[in-house]
């Protein structure tokens, strides 16, 4: 006979989900990796653009989450209405959700265990760097157009940051006269950031400006020469932090973030299951999961790309992206509790 821990619904669900999710996720990873390697020569400069491989990383994660959702909804009878055996669990399990929360935790734990190697080892195989740095998007000024008429733009950082690289990726307008690449000098807190200037003659062109580590609280872009007006919206100026973080830790944090779609999907299953039967609950849960992974809603898509590009994910901006999804899932759980309490009457 088993120990007490192994008699808990969380453990049962964990074991069940591991059995059903691990192999399909592994198979999906093998297929995705093969396809990634096969299609790479078709993509120009793919070796440098590791972020472009994010779909190949998202595939096994989606397969894992899908398996966990289906397994959990089928395994725990109270996640859908009118399932055989539900009365047993309603009497045995304490709490307003009668064990649905425990089953959900088990599914999340199982998915985390499967996603951890995917987000660390498999992501590294796809080209994710072994170190990660903080990437801070510098907020744009009110009128972010740099041109002959407005040759200076001032960017203020929310807080001083220690960095050693700046990335500029402006949008270019039609030249105001004969085409001559715009040369931009970057000043940080009143002093030049680098000895050279950055040159832009087309839209979306990325220029990296490495510099000796220093703390920066304000940036100034000065147009020195050229006829191409440059538009710098938020996201086009990125300051790279100087401190190096572990890529492994970054992968593990991504594995945590990858649980958010699963949490929201199962929370909605819990809500729907208070009144709806199994087919409806499955449709709702898989639908939510699809929207939040393949559909790109929620924080996962950006996080996958960030991991492959070496962006440190443990930042307030990533957390801010997670808040709406977490709030949505929590609201669904609270709704499920209220609905279940009501439907007993």
């Amino acid at each position, binding site marked *: *006979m*088993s*120990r*007490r821990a*192994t*008699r*808990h*619904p969380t453990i*049962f669900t964990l074991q*069940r989900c591991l059995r059903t999710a691990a192999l399909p996720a592994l198979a999906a990873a093998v297929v995705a990796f093969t396809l990634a390697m096969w299609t790479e020569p078709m993509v120009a400069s793919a070796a440098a653009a590791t972020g472009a491989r994010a779909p190949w990383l998202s595939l096994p994660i989606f397969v894992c989450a899908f398996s966990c959702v289906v397994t959990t909804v089928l*395994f725990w*009878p109270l996640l859908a209405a009118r*399932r*055989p*055996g*539900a*009365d*047993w*669990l*309603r*009497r*045995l*399990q*304490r709490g307003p959700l009668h064990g649905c929360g425990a089953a959900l935790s088990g599914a999340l734990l199982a998915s985390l265990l499967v996603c951890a190697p995917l987000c660390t080892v498999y992501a590294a195989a796809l080209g994710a760097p072994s170190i990660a740095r903080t990437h801070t998007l510098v907020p744009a000024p009110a009128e972010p157009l740099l041109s002959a008429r407005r040759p200076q733009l001032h960017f203020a950082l929310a807080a001083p940051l220690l960095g050693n690289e700046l990335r500029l990726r402006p949008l270019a307008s039609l030249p105001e006269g004969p085409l001559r690449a715009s040369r931009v000098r970057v000043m940080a807190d009143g002093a030049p950031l680098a000895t050279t200037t950055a040159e832009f003659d087309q839209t979306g062109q990325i220029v990296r400006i490495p510099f000796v580590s220093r703390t920066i609280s304000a940036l100034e872009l000065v147009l020195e020469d050229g006829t191409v007006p440059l538009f710098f919206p938020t996201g086009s100026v990125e300051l790279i932090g100087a401190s190096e973080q572990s890529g492994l830790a970054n992968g593990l944090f991504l594995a945590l973030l990858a649980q958010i779609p699963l949490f929201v999907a199962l929370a909605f299953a819990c809500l729907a299951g208070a009144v709806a039967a199994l087919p409806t609950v499955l449709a709702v849960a898989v639908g939510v999961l699809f929207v939040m992974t393949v559909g790109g809603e929620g924080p996962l898509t950006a996080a996958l790309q960030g991991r492959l590009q070496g962006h440190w994910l443990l930042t307030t901006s990533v957390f801010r992206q997670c808040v709406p999804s977490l709030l949505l899932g929590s609201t669904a759980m609270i709704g499920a509790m209220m609905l279940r309490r009501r439907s*007993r*009457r």
Partner: protein
Amino acid sequence: MATAISVQQLAVSFRTRQGSVAALQPLDLELGAGRIIGILGPNGSGKTTLLRVLAGLQTPTSGRVQLLDRQANDPALRRLVAFQPDGPLPLGVLSAPEFLAYVGAQLGLPNAVSDARAQAWLERLELQHAGRRWVRTFSSGMQKRLALAAALLGEPSILLLDEPTSGLDPIGSGVVMQILRERAAAGMTILMASHHLLEVEEICDEVLVLQGGVLRARGTLAELLGTDADSLVVRGLDHDQLQQLAQAATALGGEVLRTERQRDHLFALFRRLANEPVRGQPK
């Protein structure tokens, strides 16, 4: 005799698209401890609804329900009152010992106690050979026996059973009946809904008959069926001899209720065959 179950003006109605449907009309009951009470009635008569209300799974529309002097939804009753619903068991991918271990843990039993009781019940109900097989691969009879083991694991004071022997073969049914008799003798109150009239007749001290959510009759078998009478079953007499025997019985003050040609019961045949070894196989 102490009262185990007390029901006053209990009514349950369900809202449907067509309007409100009364599953139970106002019902009053006082059921004593240590008795086996059978609930009879056609489908939809309110048997399961009554059991679900007593198990705290259905909130009544009106009325008061008390079990062991507590409200039906009192959390303390989770262990004192066990309910075996009809239908398959949940968590079908667990083995029988795993399922019982889970039930024991949820009832707050210490692991050693839970495991010892589970082992004993599995052996008594002849499920020890099921091993690591998933519960969902069990036959319905095996599931019924496991369900009874789960219901008895916490040694409840009140046992609510919904069709406890449906799907069981006569031998298994006999084992279940024997266990229920023993538990009742030990002081457990057992309330069972069943369509097996012979079993109810055999085991129950008292019978409730529900129809359309209304309690149509209640009482002991003697009260409901008349007093017990000794009977004589004869074999080997021809028609004339039987007539003479009937006249003699009447002359002695007896009443001949009926004469009929009767075969042996199927149950007797089944039991006899079950005890005989199959040709070519050791029993």
